[in-house]
Structures are given as C-alpha cells and as structure tokens.
C-alpha cells in the first residue's frame, strides 16, 4: 500500500508517459471491475467499453491525486458509477430494457440458471439509475450500504431504501416473468 503511494507519487505530473507501464498494470488489474460496472449498468457492451476507457483516461489525468490502492478502487468505483448515471440521464437511456420487454424464460427456471441470470441482469438494467447503481455496487462489488453511500454520495438510509425497494421490484417482476419460480 505504501509502495503504491510512493510509486504513484513519484510520477511527475508532466511526465505521464514515463508511468505508462505502471499505469498499464493498474488498468489490467481493475479493468474487470470498471467494465463490469458499466456493462451491468448500461447493458451495452460497446458503450460499457467506451465508458471504461474514459474512466481510465480520467484516472491517468488524476493519477497524482491517488493515495493508496484502496483509494484507487474507491475512486474508480465512484467515477464509473457517476459516469454511468450521467450517461443514462444524458441519453435518456432508461428504460432501454423496460420491465415488460424482458423475455420470458422458455423453461421452468432453476437456481443458477444462465437464462435466469440474463433475465435478472436485464431487470437490473431497467431500474432507475440511482437504484441501479446501488444494486450493482451491492451485488457486483459486494459493498455494504455504508460503503455504497460513500461511493454514491448519498445517505445510508437512502441506500437501504433503494436496495429494499429494488429487491421488492425485482422479486415481483421476476415472479411475474417466470411464473412458477419463487425466489
């Protein structure tokens, strides 16, 4: 952790080219997290990739401000979530996948069914943007409500209510979509 701080702080602001190999390692280490946040949020692979690239470009500009690996992860989650929310608002993306447009599974669903996973992912992508960010950070990143509150700059109570409401909505919709399943 201290080593990371030294490594990053040693990088002169104007000599970013020198730090590219180290930066490449950072990208490779965290690309899955950033890309997945964007993918689960936007449900568009090209857009998710573009957004993840923009997040890392922004990181490169602010590399000198990063103080530790934990701070780096926090920063990436915060910037990726904020960009996803902004993108959704700007393009009126929601609801690209309306709750009623989610296809019904063809067979009776079972736990850990890939079809169920796809349906759930699409249902998550149809949630309002803040609720969606909360759900993605909770279940992709396994963050506690207090951590999510910090990343999204919102009160813990709001995070909890978003979670509760989103779970209820997802459960109802999933039950209606799949018919027989009760999870």
């Amino acid at each position: 952790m201290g080593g990371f701080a030294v490594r990053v702080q040693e990088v002169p602001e104007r000599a970013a080219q020198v730090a590219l190999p180290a930066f490449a390692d950072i990208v490779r280490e965290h690309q899955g997290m950033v890309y997945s946040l964007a993918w689960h949020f936007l449900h568009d692979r090209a857009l998710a990739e573009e957004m993840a690239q923009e997040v890392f470009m922004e990181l490169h500009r602010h590399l000198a401000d990063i103080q530790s690996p934990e701070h780096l992860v926090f920063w990436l989650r915060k910037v990726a979530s904020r960009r996803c929310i902004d993108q959704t608002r700007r393009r009126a993306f929601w609801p690209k996948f309306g709750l009623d447009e989610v296809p019904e599974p063809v067979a009776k669903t079972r736990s850990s069914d890939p079809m169920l996973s796809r349906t759930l992912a699409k249902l998550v992508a149809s949630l309002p943007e803040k609720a969606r960010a909360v759900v993605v950070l909770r279940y992709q990143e396994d963050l506690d409500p207090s951590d999510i509150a910090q990343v999204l700059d919102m009160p813990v109570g709001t995070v909890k209510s978003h979670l509760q409401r989103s779970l209820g909505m997802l459960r109802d919709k999933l039950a209606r979509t799949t018919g027989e399943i009760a999870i």
Partner: protein
Amino acid sequence: MSNLEDELRRALRREEPPADFADRVLAQLNQPAAPSWWERFSVLMKPPRLQWVAVTLMVSILLPTAALRYRREQQIRAEGERAKEQLLIAVHVAGSRLHHAQRKVLESGRMETRL
C-alpha cells in the same frame, strides 16, 4: 440471505473486457491530445502572420478603389437620367407647338375658302 440475492450476485458477477482493452487505453493515452477550445482561440489571438498582413493590405487598397468606381458609375447614371428627362420634356413642348401651328394653318385655310 435470500435466493434472489444469490442470483443477483451470479447475474452481476464481474466480466473481463476484450483482451486488447488495456492496449487500447494505452494507445489512446499515446495519441496527441486534441487542442482545447482555448488553444484554438489563443491561436487566433496571436500576432498576425505575413499572409494576413498581405490580405489586409490588398483589401485596404481594393476596397476604396471599388467604392470610388461604383460612386462614379452612379453619378454618370444619374446624369444620363436627367438628360433623358429634359429631352422628353423638349419633345413634348415641340409636339404641342407643332400641333398649335397646324391648327392655325387649317383655320386660316377654311376662312379663305368661305370668302
């Protein structure tokens, strides 16, 4: 923990981007940055270059010359219009006098015939 939460964890598990993702990010970083609006604006504000001086000189010579020429043409046209109007008046006056003289000649001819 409910099944739904387990299923959500499965549905929202991390996925890796395409294999060349990091290389593309680095390639973008190596590209020269596009000039910002301020940089473009400051270029316009720099001292004029030689070609702009030449263009300014040309314009400052050609513009007054063209303006003078246009004004001269306007004057000639106005004089022509005035001359045309005078000629028309003269023709009109001459025509009416001729008509008057002709009438007098006809009247005197009739009087001689009666006598």
